[in-house]
């Protein structure tokens, strides 16, 4: 059991003692939380006395009336924000004025309880806040154990999965309400868009599976001698329809006989991602070439395109999870933002390197080096 400290600043004694009474035996307990919370309530009749107690007791939650005899609630809020104190503030306000609400929220208030309130209203507000406190505690715990990145990854992932779901739900709602009339044909566009979003989600899930393989499947790696030109050719053949559509020439150049000791499937992931990107971010009528070579105990895979290119700042971000370069030129290109981060992780796992050179509007060159025995020079 943890105890959260609550401070009530209100000039009405009735409100203060009421809140104390309501919360005295109240506890918040959810199956998903590892601990239950109860509350210890302190009171202050003015903002000045409140600030003193804030400094002394460091409460977790502050219930704050705006209309006070001395300094106003907003000023107490201002004080907390300036000192960057970690207190969740709920405004108690008798006139739920929109203006004050907006001002207080932008000053860092978390919620509002309109006066007069029922015990149930107070309890449900405290319940929400407790969940938030728990989440905050959990995130800081994760941070300590280095799991923060994982947590962020999952949060961004859920966002990426939610966006297409929201869009599909929106369309289904419109169809359900027959918003475009009784003719089924009127809904063709919506249906097409839903199929498109579902496809994007499927790609995301495939990428995620690749990523899990990369991150967890190290023991299961099936290392054999892999002829890279075979892998490259398979990737090129898979992308052929797409390249024909965009009128892009695809070439495989260099040494046909380069081999590497690696997991065939992982090499496929690298080639598929690099070549499909080279086509995706290319211009109509452009070129993509994949060149293989071997020198100094090192295999070099070069994927060059004549596409839209990137700025240095963009290059610095592309290997991170879920990063997609968003601009006018990439607006209608679909992607998950995971491909290159997967490629990078794979290349790292083979002690290789990946480098990018690029020129906006001219194209990009991705150079992967994989060591055949010792690290690449």
């Amino acid at each position, binding site marked *: 059991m943890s105890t959260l400290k609550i401070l009530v600043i209100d000039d009405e004694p009735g409100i203060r003692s009421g809140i104390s009474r309501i919360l005295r035996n109240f506890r918040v307990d959810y199956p998903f939380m590892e601990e239950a919370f109860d509350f210890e309530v302190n009171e202050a009749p003015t903002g000045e006395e409140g600030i003193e107690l804030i400094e002394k007791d460091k409460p977790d939650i502050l219930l704050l009336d705006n209309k006070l005899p001395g300094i106003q609630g907003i000023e107490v809020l201002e004080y907390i924000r300036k000192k960057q104190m970690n207190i969740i503030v709920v405004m108690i306000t008798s006139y739920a004025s929109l203006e004050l609400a*907006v001002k207080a929220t*932008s000053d860092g208030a978390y919620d509002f309880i309109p006066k007069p309130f029922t015990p149930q209203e107070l309890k449900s507000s405290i319940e929400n806040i407790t969940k938030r406190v728990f989440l905050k505690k959990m995130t800081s715990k994760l941070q300590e154990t280095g799991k923060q990145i994982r947590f*962020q990854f999952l949060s961004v992932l859920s966002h990426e999965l939610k966006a297409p779901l929201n869009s599909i739900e929106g*369309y289904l709602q419109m169809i359900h309400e027959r918003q475009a009339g009784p003719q089924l044909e009127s809904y063709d566009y919506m249906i097409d868009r839903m199929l498109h979003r579902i496809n994007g989600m499927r790609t995301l899930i495939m990428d995620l599976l690749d990523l899990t393989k990369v991150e967890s499947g190290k023991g299961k790696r099936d290392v054999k001698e892999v002829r890279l030109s075979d892998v490259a050719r398979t990737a090129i053949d898979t992308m052929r329809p797409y390249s024909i559509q965009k009128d892009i020439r695809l070439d495989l150049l260099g040494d046909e006989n380069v081999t590497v000791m690696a997991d065939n499937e992982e090499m496929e992931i690298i080639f598929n991602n690099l070549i499909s990107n080279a086509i995706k971010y290319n211009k109509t009528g452009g070129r993509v070439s994949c060149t293989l070579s071997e020198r100094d105990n090192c295999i070099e895979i070069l994927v060059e395109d004549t596409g839209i290119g990137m700025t240095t700042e963009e290059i610095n971000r592309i290997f991170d999870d879920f990063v997609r370069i968003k601009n006018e030129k990439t*607006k209608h290109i679909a992607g998950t933002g995971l491909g290159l981060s997967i490629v990078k992780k794979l290349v790292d796992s083979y002690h290789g390197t990946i480098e990018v050179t690029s020129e906006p509007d001219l194209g990009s060159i991705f150079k992967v080096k994989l060591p055949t025995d010792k690290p690449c020079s």
Partner: protein
Amino acid sequence: MAKHMSITKKTILLVDDDQDYLYQMKTRVESFGFQTMLAESQKEAEDLIETTKPDLAILDLMMENEDSGFILCYKMKKKYPGVPIIIATGVAAETGISFDINDENNRKWIRADRFLEKGIRSEKLKEEIELLLKINN
């Protein structure tokens, strides 16, 4: 142009880089009886407001840049101080990439009139728009 045919309708600028969300918003907002003009990026919106003044704008937060919505908001308020702006965001606070509205530096120049969650119900959205446009039904 269509604009002259429905001269009494207020025009709402919708900016979002998710074309599906934009389409759905357009349908919703038009069903409330407003005209819409659409932009799929910060850049497109900037070009659009050069020539056209909307009566209200609903902006997505994250587009080309993480803070596209705010930049756009700033530029809009500079050009058309009286036009109310709603920033709609689908990024919940826990995603870890959300923009901190309480950050001092950000607050200095964010001048949106309302922040709304993207999942907002139609009636509520209509209410917010009408409130900002001061339409009494």
